[in-house]
């Protein structure tokens, strides 16, 4: 249908920004990965007002105040400061990561037509936060502290913040980003939990590849620390415990996922436009895939879904299993999901899986929902750039039931640095999984003309 374009454009990454438990700038993020520093920590008791977690990958130094937003011109800074009160924490993290990514790619100098720059973001669902309703509920309590519904319509509603809905809607992060940077192009938000970032990157990639935009700001932002999100995590996997302190993907003694939060954003550009303006190129998006597999008895078939998205991504990029540099696994750190993911990798890569490096960043950040996929994508881009792969933390005894080759701290020690396992190669496959039966992948190569 796009008759004007008889070919697909190539799409490259030209800027990155992060707000993560291991650093709220790319520099800090890079440093933590290089030194194997985890961002999962015991939370201060004062946080119990906003999260039920005892340990989490929490971005402690991100206050959500105007000081967290660098690289804004004076006028935009003023607008952002004024709007902070209608932004959720996820929106603030996304916006901060976005301004970093734009600065990193020197985007202002690119001079694109604002109608040809868009935003696609992986975001969480609209998690109800009890905190937003304390006043309203209180107004409807009878003398015995019981909630009286008949009071809500008259007393309750008016106690809810007027802009509560706009603060909570999942598409607001993408809208705020568009507003402060005047991005009038295609704008969408993918609410697909852990796979959302990969799917958002895929959509933006298609849009540029089709010639419908010159640049897209993409990524993900999320949290599993908020009460309802955390409750959902606890409910859906009986392995997850309330007081899990350590995330150890693919380790024999892994004991479930750990909550987290964070955001990462990247600038995608059409290759020739990027080259023309002399932009720095982190890598090229070569293919994307997503797949849901659920059988007739409503059982999630995650292993098949992961196998599908690996196979589809390799096929669409026209590469063989030997050409893949490393895999950035979902690595949730639950017994079941890690085993299924590893088996799917083995199933497609065969004997290559004996040596193919597999890393997993949730050991540093916990599960940040839609934010994780994006942070993991950025971490692997940095690994390509530095030709150095960061290890999976706490994977001290790789589980023989996970038939892959996890990169452990042992592999990346200096004395072992000649092992294939410490090298990211020239490409990576980023995998994400939703427990209800979906997987997604992005295949990225170092840029070569």
């Amino acid at each position, binding site marked *: *249908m*796009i008759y004007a374009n*008889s*070919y697909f454009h190539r799409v490259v990454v030209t800027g990155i920004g992060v707000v993560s438990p291991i650093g709220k700038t790319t520099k800090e993020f890079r440093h933590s990965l290089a030194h194997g520093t985890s961002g999962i920590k015991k939370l201060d008791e004062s946080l*119990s007002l*906003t999260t*039920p977690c005892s340990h989490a990958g929490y971005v402690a130094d991100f206050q959500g105040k105007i000081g967290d937003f660098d690289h804004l011109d004076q006028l935009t800074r003023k607008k952002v400061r004024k709007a902070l009160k209608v932004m959720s924490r996820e929106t603030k993290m996304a916006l901060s990561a976005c301004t970093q990514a734009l600065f990193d790619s020197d985007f202002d100098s690119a001079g694109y037509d604002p*109608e040809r720059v868009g935003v696609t973001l992986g975001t969480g*669902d*609209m998690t109800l936060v*009890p905190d937003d309703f*304390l006043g309203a*509920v209180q107004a*409807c309590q009878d003398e015995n*502290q*019981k*909630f009286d*519904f*008949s009071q*809500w*319509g008259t007393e309750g*509603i008016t106690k*809810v913040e*007027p*802009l*509560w*809905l*706009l603060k909570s*809607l*999942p*598409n*607001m992060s*993408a809208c*705020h980003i*568009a*507003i402060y940077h005047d*991005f*009038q192009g295609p*704008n*969408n*938000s*993918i*609410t*697909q*939990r852990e*796979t959302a970032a990969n799917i958002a990157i895929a*959509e933006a990639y298609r849009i540029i590849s089709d010639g419908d935009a010159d640049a897209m700001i993409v990524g993900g932002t999320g949290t599993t620390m908020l*009460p309802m999100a955390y*409750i*959902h995590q606890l*409910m859906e996997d009986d392995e997850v415990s309330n007081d899990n302190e350590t995330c150890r993907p693919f380790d024999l003694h892994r004991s479930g996922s750990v909550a987290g939060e964070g955001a990462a954003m990247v600038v995608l550009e059409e290759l020739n436009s990027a080259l023309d303006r002399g932009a720095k190129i982190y890598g090229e998006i070569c293919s994307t895939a997503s*797949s*849901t597999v*659920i059988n*007739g008895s409503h059982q999630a078939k995650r292993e*098949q*879904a992961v196998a599908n998205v690996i196979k*589809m991504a390799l096929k669409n990029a026209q590469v063989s299993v030997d050409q893949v540099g490393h895999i950035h696994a979902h690595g949730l750190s639950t017994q079941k999901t890690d085993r299924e993911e590893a088996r799917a990798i083995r199933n497609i890569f065969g004997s290559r899986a004996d040596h193919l490096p597999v890393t997993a960043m949730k050991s540093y950040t916990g599960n940040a929902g839609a934010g994780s996929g994006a942070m993991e994508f950025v971490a692997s881009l940095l690994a390509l750039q530095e030709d150095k792969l960061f290890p999976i933390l706490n994977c001290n005894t790789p589980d023989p039931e996970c038939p892959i080759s996890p990169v452990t701290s042992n592999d990346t020690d200096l004395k072992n640095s000649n092992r294939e396992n410490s090298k990211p190669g020239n490409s990576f496959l980023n995998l994400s999984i939703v427990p*209800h*039966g979906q997987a997604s992948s992005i295949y990225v190569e170092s840029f070569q003309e």
Partner: protein
Amino acid sequence: MNRRVVITGSGIVAPLGTTPETLWSQLVEGQSGVGLLSLFDAENFPVKVAAEVKDWSLWNVGVNPLQWSHCPRQTQFAVGAAYQAVRESGIEKLRMDPTRKGVYLGCGEAFEDFDQFTKTISQNLNGKEYDDQNFTNSALKIFSPDAEREYEPHMPVMHLAGLFDAQGPSGNCIAACVSSSQAIGESCRIIRRGEADIMLAGGAHSTIHPFGVTGFQRLSALSTYSEEPQKAVRPFDKNRQGFVIGEGAAILVLEELGSALRRNANILGEITGYGSSQDAYRITDSHVEARGTVSAITKSLRMARLNTDEIDYCNAHGTGTVVNDKVETLALKKVFGNDAVKLPVSSTKSMLGHATTACGAIELVICLQALRDGVIPPTINYETPDPECDLDYVPNFARQVKCKHILSNSIGFGGQNAALIVSRYEDSAAAAGITRKAA
């Protein structure tokens, strides 16, 4: 690279009608689906009207509703609409690589059980004392894991992928009221690029819930008129005062033209244009010059390679709020220029209320009926012209107009815009290099 995308199946669950046919017969009669809100006791609420789906259950598509009783209304609507669409298209019998068939929906957030949620807060709220840890501990005891899982907005996508073995590209988007239009537009892109041959696309939503009413009421977006519920929403009328909350689902089977022709499928229409844009202006207000809406419509026309005088009908977003209808009118005038006064524009939200994320898909199914029958559904409750809204809104009565190309426009909170163009399918099989099998 010349893959075209056609529609081979459609399903709908909406107020007024729970199949495309039954809904259409009500719309052309100018009936209203708005009534007193009955899904919860709204007696003390400032808003007492809604457009509800009534007298429907999954039995209507031969599915036992008990198996889905833990799911929110919107998920059940999505499943019902999907069964209709898949059966109409005949793809159930089609043998194909399951990874070539995907699902992309724009389903909104389903709210937590209000009673349970507020009671659990209340139990743990004593004066100024409140702790999320205590809330969580109570919730883990009381809330049902089966129900909680289903509140997440991606679950309808998961269910449809499972029911119809669609292992191809899948996802859910939320872009306020343009969600399902964008899901349809991006699904077309996926097919055109060759990443899939069939996509189930559309959306489902219900905000008829105490939290939904609370949110929209706080934004002053709702019509509070309740003396005559059927007159509560009056798009483009001078005395309009807001929208009425609606609900529903619509699912389309989108198919690559060659695939549809090879299996001799009945083609309901072709998606020829799509545009998405952002006002990039303010979170709370539409751009005063309607620049985002102008941009999305312009893009859709450019993609469809159509001139403004070739659009026979525009199904407007037409929510019935003061600002939306004014800005949308301005946008149409800017894009269509002198052709604007000749363009019939109507808002079916005057009859169906606002199904939020699902509205774009519902309205596209309505456009398919208009295309087939050469009839344009009316804007009802149009009584007093507004000098700022001076187009032909097809007031109160349906009109016979032969349609070849129809524009479906959507506008959303936060400055989101999406436009779709659906065209009568012209049999140009030869152009696609495909010979039609004898039936």
